[in-house]
C-alpha cells in the first residue's frame, strides 16, 4: 500500500468523523444541551435573589462551585500535557491522541473559567478582578491568590487555544482542499491561507516547538496556582506546602482519565481504531497508574506527617475528622477511586475491555471530584474554633450547576468533533512517511 494511498485513507477516516451525524449524536447533543440549560436556569435563581439558594453557610463559604472549578482546571491539564510535554519528549504515541485531548483542554478551561464568576456574591462586578485603569483609581490586590488565579487561568486559556488553533491549521488546509460549501469556506478561514510550502513549514515547526516550550511550564504552574488558593491560607487542611505537586499530579490523573473516557467511545463511534490503537490507550493507562501512585503518596504523606502531632493540634484534628467525621464515607470512596481503582489497569484484560477501562476512568474522575470536595469542605467545616464547626451539604441548585457544566462541556465537545479534525492529519502523515522510510530501509 503506497504512502499516498495511506495518506488518503487517513484523510478519509478523519473526514468520515465529519459525516452526517446519526441519531446517537443528536440525542447526545440534545441531552447535554438541556442539562446545560437547566443548570443555567438554576444559576439565574442565584443571580436574582442571592446565594441563599446554596447550602453554603459559615464556616463553609465554599462548596460545590469551587470544587467544580478545581476539578475542571484539573481536567484541562492532560491536554497540554499530552500535546506539549510529550511533544518535547518526542513521545510518538501522542500523535494519535493529542488533538482530542487539546480540544478537551480548551473546552475544560472554558468550563472552569465560569465558576470563579458564578460563585461570586455579586457576579456583575466580576470585571473588578481584572487590573484595568479605571476612574476610581483602584487596582487589584496582587497579593491575593485569587488574582493569581485570574492570571493563570486566562493565560492558560489563551495559550492552549492558540496551541490548538495553530496546530490545526495544516489539517484544515488539507480538509479545505477536499471540502465543498460552507465547510470549504470555514476551513479556508481556519487554515489561515495555509498552503504547506516548505517555507511555511520551516517557520511553523519552529514556532510550534516554542508553543510547546511555553505550554509545558504553564501546565505545571496553573494547577500549582490553583493549589495556592488553598495552600496560601491559614486554614488547617489547606495550609500545606505539599499542595502544588499534589494538585498537579491529581490534575494529570483526572485529565488523562477523562481523555480515555472520551477516546474509548470516540474511536468506536468514528472507527478510528487504526489511528488510535490499543497501544495508544495502553500508554495513557500507564500515565494514569503513574499519577495515581503519586496521588496515593501525597495522601499518605499528608496524613502520616500530621498524625504524630498531639491530639489537640487543629491540623491533626482536621485530618482525623476527614477520615472519621461526617464526610468519612466520601473520603474512603475517594481513596478507593483514586488509589485502588487505577491499579486494576495493571491487567491487560482491564485495559482492553472498553467497559472495565471506562469504569476505572470514570471512577477516577468521581474520585478526583471528591478529593477537591474533601479538601475544601472538610477543612472549612472543622476550623480552629470548635464553637463554629458546621457541616456543608450542597443543595439542588448547586448540583444543577455542577451537572450543567458537564452539559456545557460535552455540548462544546460534540460540536467540536463535527468541525475539528479529531486526529492530527499532518502529523499522522509524517508518522506514516517515517515508517515508510524505515520499511524502505529494511527492503534494501
Amino acid at each position: 500500500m503506497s504512502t499516498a494511498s495511506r495518506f488518503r485513507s487517513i484523510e478519509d477516516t478523519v473526514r468520515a468523523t465529519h459525516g452526517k451525524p446519526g441519531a446517537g449524536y443528536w440525542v447526545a447533543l440534545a441531552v447535554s444541551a438541556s442539562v446545560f440549560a437547566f443548570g443555567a436556569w438554576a444559576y439565574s435563581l442565584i443571580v436574582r435573589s442571592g446565594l441563599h439558594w446554596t447550602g453554603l453557610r459559615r464556616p463553609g463559604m465554599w462548596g460545590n462551585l469551587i470544587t467544580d472549578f478545581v476539578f475542571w482546571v484539573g481536567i484541562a491539564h492532560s491536554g497540554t500535557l499530552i500535546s506539549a510535554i510529550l511533544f518535547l519528549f518526542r513521545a510518538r504515541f501522542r500523535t494519535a491522541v493529542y488533538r482530542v485531548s487539546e480540544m478537551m483542554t480548551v473546552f475544560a478551561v472554558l468550563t472552569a473559567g465560569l465558576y470563579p464568576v458564578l460563585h461570586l456574591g455579586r457576579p456583575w462586578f466580576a470585571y473588578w478582578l481584572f487590573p484595568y485603569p479605571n476612574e476610581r483609581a483602584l487596582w487589584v490586590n496582587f497579593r491575593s491568590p485569587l488574582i493569581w488565579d485570574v492570571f493563570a487561568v486566562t493565560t492558560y486559556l489563551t495559550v492552549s487555544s492558540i496551541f490548538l488553533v495553530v496546530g490545526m491549521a495544516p489539517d484544515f488546509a488539507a480538509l479545505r482542499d477536499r471540502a465543498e460549501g460552507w465547510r470549504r469556506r470555514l476551513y479556508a478561514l481556519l487554515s489561515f491561507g495555509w498552503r504547506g510550502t516548505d517555507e511555511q513549514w520551516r517557520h511553523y515547526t519552529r514556532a510550534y516547538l516554542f508553543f510547546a516550550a511555553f505550554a509545558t511550564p504553564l501546565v505545571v504552574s496553573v494547577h500549582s496556582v490553583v493549589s495556592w488558593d488553598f495552600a496560601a491560607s491559614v486554614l488547617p487542611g489547606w495550609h500545606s506546602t505539599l499542595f502544588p505537586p499534589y494538585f498537579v499530579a491529581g490534575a494529570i490523573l483526572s485529565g488523562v482519565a477523562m481523555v480515555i473516557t472520551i477516546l474509548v467511545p470516540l474511536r468506536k463511534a468514528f472507527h478510528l481504531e487504526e489511528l488510535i490503537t490499543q497501544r495508544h490507550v495502553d500508554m495513557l493507562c500507564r500515565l494514569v497508574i503513574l499519577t495515581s501512585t503519586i496521588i496515593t503518596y501525597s495522601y499518605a504523606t499528608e496524613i502520616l506527617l500530621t498524625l504524630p502531632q498531639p491530639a489537640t493540634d487543629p491540623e491533626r484534628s482536621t485530618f482525623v475528622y476527614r477520615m472519621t467525621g461526617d464526610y468519612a464515607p466520601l473520603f474512603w470512596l475517594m481513596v478507593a477511586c483514586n488509589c485502588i481503582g487505577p491499579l486494576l489497569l495493571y491487567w491487560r484484560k482491564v485495559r482492553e475491555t472498553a467497559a472495565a477501562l471506562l469504569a476505572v476512568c470514570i471512577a477516577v474522575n468521581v474520585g478526583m471530584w471528591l478529593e477537591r470536595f474533601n479538601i475544601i469542605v472538610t477543612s472549612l467545616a472543622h476550623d480552629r474554633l470548635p464553637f463554629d464547626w458546621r457541616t456543608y451539604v450542597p443543595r439542588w441548585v448547586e448540583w444543577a450547576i455542577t451537572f450543567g457544566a458537564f452539559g456545557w462541556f460535552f455540548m462544546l465537545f460534540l460540536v467540536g468533533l463535527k468541525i475539528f479534525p479529531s486526529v492530527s492529519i499532518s502529523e499522522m502523515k509524517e508518522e506514516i512517511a517515517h515508517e515508510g522510510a524505515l520499511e524502505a530501509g529494511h527492503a534494501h
Partner: protein
Amino acid sequence: MSDRAQGGLPRRTFLKIAGAAGLAAGCSPKAATQKLVPLLVPPEDIVPGVPLYYRTVCRECPAGCGVTARTREGRAVKLEGNPEEPIGRGALCARGQAAVQALYHPDRFRGPMRRGADGRLSPVGWDQAEDQLAQAIAAARARGPGRVRLVTRAEPGAAGDVQRALLAAVGGRPADRLVLEPLDPAPVRAAGAALFGRPEIPALDLAAAHTVVSFGADFLESWVSPVEYTRQFAAGRGRIGDDRTRLVWVGPRLSLTGVSADRWLRVRSGGELPLALGLLRWVVDPGNAVAGLAPEVAALAPALLRLSPADLAARAGVAAADIEGLARELARRRPSALLGPGPSSQGPDATALAAVLLLLDLAVGNFGRTMWYGLDPAEEVPSTAAEAAALVEAMAAGQVDVLLAVNADPLAALPAALKAGEAAARVPLVVSFALRPDATAARAHLILPDHHTLESFGDVSPRAGVLNLAQPVMTPLFDTRQAVQVLLEVAGRLQLPAPLAPSADPYDLLQDRAGKRVQQAAAGPGADPAAAWREALQRGGAWSDAAPARRLPQLARDAAARFLALGPAPAPAAAGEVDLVLFPTALHGDGRSGELPWLQEIPDTLTSVSWSPWAEISPATAGRLGVRSGDLLALAGAAGRAEVPAYVFPGIRDDAVAVRLGSAEARALMPAGLDPVSGARAYAGSRVALSAAGRREPLPLLEGSPYQHGREIVQTVTAAAPAARRADLTHQMYPEPRHPDHRWAMAIDLDRCTGCEACVVACFAENNVPVMGAEAARMGRYMGWLRIERYLGDEPGGALDVQLLPMLCQQCTNAPCETVCPVYATYHTPEGLNAQVYNRCVGTRYCSNNCPYKVRTFNWRDPEFRAPLPMQLNPDVTVRSRGVMEKCTFCVQRIRYAEGQARDEGRPVADGEIVPACAQTCPAQAIVFGDANDPASRLSRAARAPRGFRALEEVNTQPAITYLARVRRAEEP
C-alpha cells in the same frame, strides 16, 4: 447599596408614616429622583445629620433604669443607659435596648379599634371609643363595686395614682386593681414582713460582698434589678486575690447567673430550703463557734439543732460536706449576701426559704453592709398570684363588667391552667391599651393603643431617692394616646364630683406630681425650683442619695420559729417523672416584651438556641429517653402538657427538666399552685412526666461543638498561676505595620462578662445588623457581628466547665482575611482597623474562609426591614446588600465622629472618648476600648495585665483584642 436593601425603602416609608420634612436631606440619597421637602418652621436643635439625645426611662422591667435615647432627624435610633442615673449608671440590658423595636414594631396598632359584631376589629375615633368606655364604666359602677377591674404593670408614679384614683372614683376597692408583675419576689417581701415587719425587698450592695450565694435568684439576668446587680457584682471581679467576689449558685439547673459562679451546688428542685437550713444550722451550732454571730439568730440554735445535717443534705440532694464547706465560707468571708428565692427556686415553701436566707444574712451580719431595708418605696407592691387567680375567678363568675388591661397582658402572663382566656370571654367589655396585638388584645372589644414609653411622659421611682422621668423623644408615630390621658379623659366623661386631676395632659400630670417633688426638694434659700425641674428633665430625673436606714432590722419575737421546720419529705418521683424547672432569661425576662425581632434572633447564651422554645435535659436523661437535641419532648404535668424540642445540656440535674419562662410552653406547664404564705406563684415544686414525642424539630443552634477539644482557647488563671499562657511570637517575617497616630484596640474581661447579651443587642442596634429569621437561623446564617461563644468543657462527657468568649472581629494586625481579598475590599487602616469596604466587595468569601475566628458574616440575601422598622436604622452605617461580606468595625462611625469632634476643637482624641456600642452598654463594664499606642490609656493598662491573652495567638494574627482570663476560684481550705 441596593435600592431595596436600604436608603430607598426606609426613607419612603418614613416620609409616608411620619410625613416629616427635611428628612431626605438627612437620609441617604438613592431613589431615582428625590424630593427635598423643606420644613415649614424649623424646629430648633434638630439639625439633619446631627444626633440629638433625650433622657428618659426604661419600662421593660420594674427595675426602671434611666435611658439616653439617641435621635436622628427626629426619630429614635438607639437606646443607651443614662450615665447619671444611679440604677443603670449608663448601662442598659438586652431587653431595655430592644424597646426601640417595640416602638417601631410593624404590627403596632395605628389607632383605636373596636371589635364589631363580626368579631373583626375596625378603626374607631378616640371620642367614640372613650365614650363607649365611659358609658360601660358608668353602667358597671351602678352595679356595685368590683365590676370594673384594671390590670397593669407596676406603675410607681403618676400613672399608678391615676389608675387608683379612677377606680376609687367609680367605687372600686384597691383589690380591683391588679398589678401584674409575675417575677416579683413576693416571698422576700412576705418573709421581711414576718421577720422584721418590713414587707420590702432589701436594697443590695453586692460590691461590698465577699461571697454571694444565690438560691435560684438570677440576679445577673432578670431578678429585681439585673443591670444594677451586675455592675455591683462585677466591681468585685477581675481580681486574683481573696478579695475577689465569689459567687455560689444553688439550684437544680445551672443558669446564666450560675455560669458566673465559682461553684454550683446541684441541689434538687425544692432542695434549696433544706440546704439553707443546713447552712443556718451549722452557723448557729455552738460547736462551730462562729464568732460575731447576731445574738437573736444564735438564740434559734435549739430549734435548728433538732434538724439532722444528714437528713438536710439528703433532702437537698448534696453532700453534707458541701453544706458545711459553704457554711464555713459564710462564717469566714464577711460580709456576704444570700439572695433568693428566684423564679426557678420559688416553690410552695418560698417564703420559708426567703426567711431562712434573711436569717442567715442577719446572722453573719450582712444587714447594713451589703443589704438595707428602707429603700423600697413600696408604693406599688405588685399583686400576688393569689389575687390574680381571684380576678380570673371573678371574671369567670361573670362578676366583672369592664376589664382594663394597661401595659399588661394577663391572658399571656397567667398560667394556662387558670383558663384566663375563657374567663375573659365572660367579660362584656375587655379594653386593651396594648401597643400591638397580644393575647389580651386578641379578646379585647376595645383597643385604645397607648403611646410607647419613648413617646410619653411619666415618672418612675423604683427606689427611695430615685425619681426617673420619662419624656417623649419623638413625635408619636401613630394615632395613639397615652393611657393615663385616656383614663383621665374617660373619668372626665363620668359625672364625677371632682376631676381626678387638674388636666388630662400627661405633661401637666408629670409636673403636678414629680415636678412638685423636685421643686420642693430644690426649695430653700437662693434655690431656683423652676431651674431644678428643667435640669431634672434634662438629666432624666432627680436623685438624692437617701441615706438607708442604718439601724439593723429587728427580728420579731418568735417570728422565725415557724420557718425553721421542714415539711414532710416530698414523695419520690414516679417513674418517668422529673422536676419541672421554669426559669427566666436575660433576653426574655418574664416574656412581656413579646416577640421583638432582636430578642428572637439573638441566641440564648447558655444553649445558643434562637427563635424556638427548648427543654433542657441532662445527657443521662437524654440517653434514657433516647433523644438528642432537636427531638421533641412531651412534657405532661398536673397543669397541662406541651411538646418542646429537647436541648441536651449537662448543666441540669438528671431528675429535672427546664423550660424558659415567657414561652407559650412554659405557660401551658406552669402550675397554678402557690406559696401559701406570700401568695406568690409556686413556679418550682411540680413534676412532669417526660417522654419522647417521637418527632423531630431541629433547633436553630449557633453552636457547633460546645467543647474546646483540649485547644485551651478560653484560658483561666488561678491565684496559684496568675498569668495566662502566651504564644512565642519572637520570630517575625515582616516588620509590623506602623500605626502613626492611633491603634484602636479592646480588652474584654472574661471574669466580669456574664453573657447577658446586652452588647450583642447594642451591636445590632448600632450597626443595622439585619434579623434574618428562624429559617436562616436554622440554616446557620445568623448575621450577628458579635457572638458569645459558650464552651461547656474540654471534651464531650468531661467535667462541666462553662466558659464564655465574646467573639467579634479581632481587628488583627496581620489579618489573614486582608491578603486574600482580590479587590482590596478589606485592608488594614493606618489606625489599626481591619476595614471592610462593602461597596468594593464582590463576594468571593475567601476572607471568611481564611478568618481563624470566623467573625465575618455574608449577606446570603437582601435583608428585609418591615416598616416602620427602617426608621430605627442608623444613618451613619449602610445597610449591606446581598452578596457582600460584613463584620465588626469597632463602630468606626463612632470613631469617625469623635475624631471629627476633636479636630473641630483642635485637640487630640481623649482616652475613653470613643466607646463602641458594645462597651458602652456592658452592665459589667467588661469591655474597655482605647488607643494601644498610648501606654497610659485605660486600654493599654488593662491589656498589660498578666491575665491578658489573645485568641488563637499562635496563628500570629496579632489581634487587637486582649481577653483577660477568667479567674478560677482557689480551692476552699
